[in-house]
């Protein structure tokens, strides 16, 4: 950088990458490049594209279910198909969308944000992706035979061979194994990469919060996945090889499955939302032009949530045969996990407080996330009070609760992440106006779909029923919810079209369009294969802020730091030109 004349800093994007691509690319077919790649960025993009394909499939399944439930005594679907759809929807969204979509973001961003040139094990990384793809293919191939219909939680005895004889249930088990191995390998890769390959000077208290989120995601996957792998293997041997782990007629225990499944299943919830929290913890400070409020509290809360996440599983089983004293324990542990979660919500709002907010689309998705997730968190307290849960468990109140948590906590933050990192991944800016329109359609549609579901549960509508009689007080709420789901779908489609069009026609972004804080913005957009030629020494949690300050000191030209005036001007030019 010493060769650049000081006055050039004012006109050139700072900092700049001096050289990359030291050799000419070998000649190859373009699609073969993707299939054979071990580059973390290409693998990350493939993860994101594949998981969004599954997201759309899961969404169509949800729309079919909402269409069936729009009016009482509907015959659009039969109960067999309805049960298959609810199983496909739940399994797809969890195992084929939310968990792996974070692996996609993690793959792309972890090496860039910690200043590494790739993941620790690039080939293992490719294997993770292809195992995920195989899991999806095995699972969706059942559409041509008999899809599974015992639910994504697959409680035996219903999932045993006697009651679910079809191969669909076995395909579900196979999916859990394949995606499980995929996530486990990916998690080990993230862990090793983050522990060993950080830029010089990036000590644990200078680790970007997104990396903290991915680290905890990886640790929770390593803790939880072996348990569900064991459980589904036991189910498989029950079904085909004559064991009786879960068969009550030979002293097996269906409740054992519930304990094993939820010991995995509850950490899974945090696996799905911790990276989402982490995205918000990156985006909110950038667009508030302020440091995160209480970095240490955020990192600590992340670790505490991970610890407590392994101690709350039986709150999914409050109606199962379990002694009252155990229920009391799980109520209290579930309460405890509310505290670090609350600390994060307060922290985000405090970060915005006294800031200079630039309301980009990514920022709107974060604000929408906080507003929605708060409701999900609060209804979680209702459900943790186990006598109240005896009324609410297995009703639409729970459906509303976990969609507020997972749609708000995961999907809205995934969208925030895509809008935030789109310029880095594609080199082009997204259309901000269409992004905001999409956000508001999604926000309205989401609340229309799920808010009334609280009321449905309170008026006694159980989950998982394929239809209901008229005159029990559920018809109006169901109709509102179904209309809401179509609005939500329109919002999601708007964003996907926006990304597709911006990918072709968006304005060129430059290395750091947001004047952000972390190292991925140090390199060009999209980054070269080797990411960085020179890796800067990291001196704080916001290295790019330090670099801009340094440049300012050397050149006397104001860089975009605290105060958003310059930035806002540029941002408005970007959106209105």
């Amino acid at each position, binding site marked *: 950088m010493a060769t650049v004349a000081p006055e050039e800093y004012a006109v050139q994007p700072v900092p700049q990458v001096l050289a990359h691509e030291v050799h000419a690319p070998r000649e190859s077919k373009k699609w073969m490049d993707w299939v054979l790649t071990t580059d973390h960025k290409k693998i990350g993009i493939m993860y994101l594209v594949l998981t969004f394909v599954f997201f759309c499939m899961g969404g169509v399944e949800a729309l079919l279910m909402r269409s069936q439930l729009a009016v009482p005594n509907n015959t659009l679907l039969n109960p067999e198909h309805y049960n298959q759809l609810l199983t496909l929807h739940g399994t797809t969204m969890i195992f084929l969308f939310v968990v792996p979509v974070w692996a996609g973001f993690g793959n792309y961003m972890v090496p860039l944000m910690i200043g590494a040139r790739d993941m620790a094990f690039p080939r293992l990384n490719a294997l993770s992706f292809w195992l995920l793809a195989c899991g999806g293919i095995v699972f969706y191939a059942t559409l041509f035979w008999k899809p599974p219909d015992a639910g994504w939680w697959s409680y035996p005895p219903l999932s045993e061979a006697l009651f679910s004889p079809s191969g669909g249930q076995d395909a579900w088990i196979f999916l859990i194994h394949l995606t499980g191995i995929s996530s486990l390998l990916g998690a080990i890769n993230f862990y090793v990469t983050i522990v060993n390959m950080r830029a010089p000077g990036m000590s644990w208290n200078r680790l970007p919060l997104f990396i903290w989120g991915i680290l905890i995601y990886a640790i929770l996957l390593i803790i939880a996945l072996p348990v569900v792998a064991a459980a589904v293997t036991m189910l498989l041997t029950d079904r085909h090889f004559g064991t009786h782990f879960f068969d009550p007629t030979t002293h097996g225990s269906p409740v054992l499955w519930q304990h094993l499944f939820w010991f995995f299943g509850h950490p899974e919830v945090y696996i799905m939302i911790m990276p989402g929290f982490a995205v918000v913890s990156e985006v909110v400070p950038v667009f508030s032009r302020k440091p995160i409020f209480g970095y240490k509290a955020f990192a600590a809360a992340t670790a505490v949530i991970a610890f407590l996440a392994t101690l709350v599983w039986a709150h999914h089983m409050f109606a199962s045969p379990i002694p009252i004293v155990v229920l009391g324990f799980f109520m209290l542990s579930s309460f405890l996990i509310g505290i670090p979660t609350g600390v994060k919500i307060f922290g985000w709002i405090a970060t915005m407080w006294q800031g200079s907010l630039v309301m980009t689309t990514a920022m709107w998705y974060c604000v929408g996330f906080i507003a929605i997730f708060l409701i999900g968190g609060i209804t979680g307290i209702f459900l943790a009070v186990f006598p109240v849960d005896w009324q609410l468990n297995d009703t639409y109140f729970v459906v509303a609760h976990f969609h507020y948590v997972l749609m708000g906590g995961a999907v809205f933050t995934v969208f925030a992440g895509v809008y935030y990192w789109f310029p880095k991944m594609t080199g082009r800016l997204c259309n901000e106006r269409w992004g905001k329109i999409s956000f508001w359609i999604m926000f309205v549609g989401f609340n229309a779909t799920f808010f009334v579901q609280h009321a449905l549960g309170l008026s006694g509508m*159980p989950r998982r029923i394929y239809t209901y009689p008229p005159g029990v007080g559920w018809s109006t709420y169901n109709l509102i919810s179904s209309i809401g789901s179509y609005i939500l779908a329109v919002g999601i489609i708007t964003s996907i079209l926006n990304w597709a069009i911006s990918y072709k026609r968006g304005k060129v972004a430059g290395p750091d369009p947001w004047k952000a804080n972390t190292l991925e913005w140090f390199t060009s957009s999209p980054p070269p294969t080797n990411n960085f030629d020179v890796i800067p020494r990291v001196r704080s949690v916001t290295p790019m802020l330090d670099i801009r300050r340094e440049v300012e000191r050397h050149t006397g030209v104001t860089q975009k730091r605290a*105060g958003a005036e310059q930035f806002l001007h540029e941002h408005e030019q970007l959106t209105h030109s």
Partner: protein
Amino acid sequence: MAGSLALAPSAFANFITPKGGGSPNADSIHTLYLVVLIVAAVVFVAVESALVYAVFTFRAKKHPVARQIHGNTRLEIGWTSAAALILLILAVVTFVKLPSIVNPPNSQKDGYALSASVTEPNPPNGQKLRVCVQGRQYIWRYTYGQNCLKTGYAAHDPYSYTTMVVPVHTTVVLAIQSLDVIHSWWIPSLGGKVDAVPGDTTYTWFQATHVGKYRGQCAQLCGWNHDAMDAYVDVVTPAQYKAFLSGQTRVIRDQNRQVSQLRSILTSENQLGS
């Protein structure tokens, strides 16, 4: 108080609160829910207003210079302890309310006359009406008889399907079992749900406060016709209940006799035909 709230006829009664009004345990859950709801509403309004206020007040146009604050330890400790305190209060309230939800009271004086027995849950004087509830794909069966758990089908206890008939003002204890997959017993106005798990026996109780008919349905996915697994509880006077039991016993006996007659006719015809 909670009872009167639950009984208040309002179109929006179940928009923000669960059903109740049929039995003291359902009413206690309702009261507990209201406590949580009030605390939740305060937290919700406070946090969402702070968020909305921040979004509209600190826009870059109105507030061009961001204050570079890294945190405030006192504030952070403050809100962490505030959250902990709220949850502590809710935990205390829950454990205070718990006995009235879990432990049944004695039957009222005008309830059905009962003798004592010793299985959980138990009212203080030990007198309760036991009904055995058995879930199966896709129907509920109710066996009426104090020993229904031990003797099962052998004692020729009266039974009915789908609609359970019980006397008003009487402590009814349900012993819940399943014959095949997991089901979940739930009549919202008469209390919370209890899973029917094959291989286990689970219990719940209610004491109907007035005569009437209550609807519920199986709450755990049990197969394709899960939606059709309705349950009704018909609360009648003790005299009507007595009449129901004897009537049901007679009907079952008559029909069993008809079945055995038919069976003997069919088997003898078969013998003639062969």
